[in-house]
């Protein structure tokens, strides 16, 4: 059982990095958060990256196999998709999804991007 204080600290750090406008925070989140073995940490990190709504942050959760919408954990993938659907401005996300569907080398990533793109078009 993880201590509540540790959970609270990690949550605050990830949310704080998500709100921090410095572009370097994206790489911190990618390196430390999206590669964590804990599903809850990967989920929080993916949501923080989506909330940034920047090209580089969205690209991490859309185009990388095993991260964001392509995560092995269904909870992480669905949570990321839900956060994408909640965006007020979906233009950047749609652009990255279109590029991924057309140009990505991995078929599974292309299929996931196509499905999310369809969902976002309907929402």
């Amino acid at each position, binding site marked *: *059982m*993880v*201590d*509540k*204080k*540790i*959970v*609270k*600290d*990690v949550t*605050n*750090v*990830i*949310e*704080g*990095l*998500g*709100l*921090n406008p*410095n572009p*370097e*925070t994206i790489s*911190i*989140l990618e*390196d*430390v*958060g999206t590669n*964590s*073995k*804990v599903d809850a*940490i990967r989920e929080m990190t993916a949501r923080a990256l989506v909330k940034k709504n920047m090209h580089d942050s969205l690209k991490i959760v859309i185009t990388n196999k095993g991260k964001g919408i392509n995560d092995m954990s269904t909870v992480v993938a669905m949570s990321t998709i839900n956060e994408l659907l909640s965006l007020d401005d979906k233009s950047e996300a749609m652009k990255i999804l279109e590029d991924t569907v057309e140009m990505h080398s991995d078929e599974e990533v292309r299929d996931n991007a196509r499905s999310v793109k369809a969902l976002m078009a309907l929402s």
Partner: protein
Amino acid sequence: MANLSIPSIRERLFNTSKHETTTQRNSNSTNPFAASSFKGNVLTADVFESSSKKADQPSFTGKLKASALVGSISGIGEKFQNMINSVVAFGNRMKENVVNGWNKLNNIEISFTPAKEKAVSMFNSMKDTLNTSVSDLISSGISVKSVSKMDDMAAARQLATDKIAQWEAAA
């Protein structure tokens, strides 16, 4: 015993002088009918009822009277039963009212229980929240606001790495 045939009775009724003896009025007489009945003459025989008639017709003192008495008793019983029924109904109504009131009281008692539990739960959660926030402020001081305003990205990376490592170690 006197002759009780119908002709003899008729003769006695209409020829009283022959069969009745005149009696002197006596002021000391205790007979209350002496002054009014047959002008002071006393009948020597019972002319109003014959023994044969008595045998044929039912007397009032017999079954009729008994049935009338029974009827009246049963009627009284019915009225009395109605009275009892109304009293019982009144009692039942009172009992229902009392039972309903008791149930309402019980419901009120039950409805207060969750509210009490909610209040206790709310108090405990508030206490936990206060404890957590105070300990955070004293020990680490890590908050969303402080991290979102960090300029030193190396320190931010180190902080994130350490905290996530702590979680992964505990998991």
